[in-house]
């Protein structure tokens, strides 16, 4: 999964504005550093050498040293002006970030959990609401309003290519607005330390052309595909009679768990385990049998399955497009 996660390659208007501010800051700060460093080196260069024996220059105590005074004052004034300029630039950028037009914005609700992302696509029409996990699909060019909640500890929602961070804090609902301007797959990651698997709490943001997005959303609204063939049928039985059912949900079956990622369309996702592993048969099987060695501390327990049962289960899960 070669998804980029890089604040220096903005793919959305918000990230672009911040990137411009970064460039400005970088230039100004480089100039300042060059100036200070130059003066510093110059001072070392021109000052005569001495030893402990050299008699101290006590004259400096009484004299006002107007030259130095002038130089320091100028330096101070220049710094003050520069800083004020940067403050203004920063505040303006901040305003611009808040000023994203949200007309016909797409509303998505993201709930962070240790250590994955529960995603609900809201809609005024209840039948059109659907749920997925760890993979955020958005239409290019259309503003997206994301409601951020946490169900346990503090997490932080961060997709560097699209926007800066926003913390998800239990007891608070925060909002982040962003807009992707070029199609692509962008990686996001939790940016607030949240426990054992803070390192492996990632997700993908996939920016589609609007019509592709609609197609995707339509498919996600469907209940899970009925199993075809004995193997898949058996696989569903395995799913419903094993620990999976306690936490996971597959729409259209009795599995209605809310504690773990919704698997209704598992096969349509690119990764499993919150952006940790590519969604392949091998990874999926290994993950089910022994999630703890991939993600030590993850809430998912190891599930002991007979080889045949596992094959059936995988067949079923892979049918959930």
């Amino acid at each position, binding site marked *: 999964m070669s998804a980029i996660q890089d604040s220096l390659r903005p793919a959305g208007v918000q990230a672009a504005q911040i990137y411009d501010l970064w460039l400005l800051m970088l230039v100004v700060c480089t100039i300042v550093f060059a100036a200070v460093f130059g003066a510093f080196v110059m001072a070392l260069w021109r*000052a005569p050498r*001495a030893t402990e024996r050299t008699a*101290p220059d006590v004259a400096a105590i009484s004299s006002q040293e107007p030259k130095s005074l002038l130089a320091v004052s100028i330096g101070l004034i220049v710094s003050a002006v520069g800083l004020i300029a940067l403050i203004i630039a*920063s505040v303006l950028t901040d305003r611009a970030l808040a000023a994203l037009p949200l007309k016909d914005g797409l509303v998505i609700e993201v709930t962070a959990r240790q250590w994955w992302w529960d995603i609900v696509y809201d809609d005024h029409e209840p039948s059109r609401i659907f749920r997925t996990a760890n993979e955020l699909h958005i239409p290019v060019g259309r503003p997206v309003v994301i409601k951020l909640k946490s169900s346990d500890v503090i997490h932080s929602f961060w997709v*560097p290519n699209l926007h800066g961070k926003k913390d998800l804090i239990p007891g608070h609902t925060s909002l982040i607005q962003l807009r992707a301007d070029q199609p692509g797959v962008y*990686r996001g990651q939790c940016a607030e330390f949240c426990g054992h698997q803070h390192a492996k709490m990632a997700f993908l943001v996939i920016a589609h052309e609007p019509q592709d997005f609609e197609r995707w959303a339509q498919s996600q609204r469907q209940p899970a595909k009925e199993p075809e063939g004995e193997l898949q049928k058996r696989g569903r039985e395995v799913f419903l009679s094993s620990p999976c059912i306690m936490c996971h949900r597959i729409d259209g079956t009795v599995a209605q768990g809310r504690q773990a990622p919704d698997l209704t369309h598992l096969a349509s996702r690119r990764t499993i385990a919150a952006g940790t592993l590519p969604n392949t048969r091998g990874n999926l099987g290994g993950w089910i049998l022994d999630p703890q060695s991939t993600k*030590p501390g993850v809430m998912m327990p190891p599930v002991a399955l007979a080889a045949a049962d596992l094959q059936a289960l995988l067949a079923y899960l892979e049918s959930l497009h």
Partner: protein
Amino acid sequence: MAAARARVPRSAPAIEADGDLHARLSRAWGREGGVAGWFSDIDHKTSGVRFIVTAFGFFVAGGILAALMRLQLSRPENTLIGPDLYNQIFTMHGTTMMFLFAVPMMLGVGVYIVPLMVGARNIAFPRMVAFAYWVFLFGGLMLYTAFFFNAGPDAGWFSYTPLAGPEFTPGKRSDFWAQLITYTEVSALLVSIALITTIFKLRAPGMTINRMPHFVWAMLVTSFVVVFAMPAVMFASTSLITDRLVGTHFFNPAEGGDALLWQHLFWFFGHPEVYLIFLPALGMISMIIGTFSRRPVFGYPGLVIAQIATGFFSFGLWVHHMFATQLPEVGKAFFTAASLLIALPTALQIFCWIATLWTGRLNFKTPLLFVLAFFVILVIGGLTGIMLGSVALDLQIHDTYFVVAHLHYVLIGGAVFPLFGAFYYWFPKITGRMLSETLGRWNFWLFFVGFNVTFFPMHNLGLQGMPRRVYTYPADMGWNVLNAIASVGAAMIAVSMLLFVVNVAVSYRRGARAGANPWSASSLEWATPSPPPPYNFAAIPVLGGREPLWEEKGIAGRVEGLDVDTPMALVTTLVDAKPDHRSIQPTPTPWPFLSAVALTMFFVGSIFSPWAVVWLSIPVTIAVTIWFWPREQETQEHLALERRP
């Protein structure tokens, strides 16, 4: 001493006592030999050295933890250290460096140097300072004992709730963290009171407030920052531990508490914390630059005002650690402005120092080298700090490796490099021997290069999206090379630290004799032999100028009339340091040590049972009472010398 006399400038020979006076003063200010005497020692020089050595020990421990982290992160998908241990390690690293190294180290240097600099014979409240040392030591030992038994805190040095709260950190890990905070804060607060009092009331006659050396000013401002900042984290950690142990709801949103309350309380301390590590370093820089450019530092009033301003404004920008939380626009603008404008006082000081170097005659010895590194590293750290102070930009780089780079540039460049300069500068005063210049230069260059190799790449890592506090990272993120480079740099730093330890070990025995004033510096601590006798000064000097050992009339005279057989201090007036009264100082006693033991039982006990707060307060009370209860014979001696106001 022959060497000494030769090195000291004509104008000011060391203030030394002849045999008989030396013996009597030593009896009055010294301590008994033997183990009991060792535990009873209340000399500020002893306490100072103990603080410095212990804090350095914790610095090494924290460094080893850092090395382990760099080892784990040297390549992607590394399984050397699992998340559980890694989280404990980075939490211990941060906690150690902040609470067990930086603050106690700076205060320890202050405890040793400030009384000498102001021409006092001991620090004010010496028993309290000894007590503060033991409390600090036991706190650190408790934390590391817990760590070795797998009970090391693992919620970060900032212990954000709810992660550090009762639901998400079961067991006792966070309780040990919270209690460690209480230890170290008690210690730091007591030392600060002692320093403030020493600086205000125990200055030698003639050292008017506008003649105080820069380091004294720095420690004064630092102490005030401690007094008003540290209670915040103590209060916060107390609330955390009551949440965990007795079920209070300060940080429980379901019952009207709030996780953000923790962040406000913590950063109200946490930001000034940075400056109270930084401020003493500014003082050290001024002293060293003055001495090694052979002239008084340019712009005394400017530097003093800058230090006060820094200390004052440091309370106005804690929210810039919380920009990613939901904040009102106005607040954001205000805290952006505050966070950027605090750069001005620092800029002013840097300009003054450059002016000093420009017009001075430079003596390129190791202490100066370490201080010059400040001008490269701290300036970079300060500039990245400006970036982080801007709300918009912070949203991208907050909690990434960019911040890791920034804070190490500020803390190591701003505090640790000057601190090592101070080690090389004051080691001769403390031990009477010089550190090796050759090893010193190797130590410096390895540290300087290694530091930049380690931390400069982290700026890029952060911008390229690598978050902080991750125990591993995927192989296909493009972070591998820079992480590997950083780990190599860490190794270089480790070697340079090893060289320093060797240098100290060797020089302590075989270093060249220093004499009273090896650098022919101007401040008062150089007017007494190295190492200074228990009583510091045979006669309290009377100052005639700001640069006592440089100016012709720098030391205008001496004080007489202080009893030489009892520890009697001269107390002067606050502003113009006129002799005011004589104060008989406390004598050595083991009770500060024993009280610290009792307090340790109290703190550790309270982690396991709230009732310990009741029962274990009894031994504390008893110990403290015996500590304060006056002894008959001493009282008789005092009565003999007593003179009513």
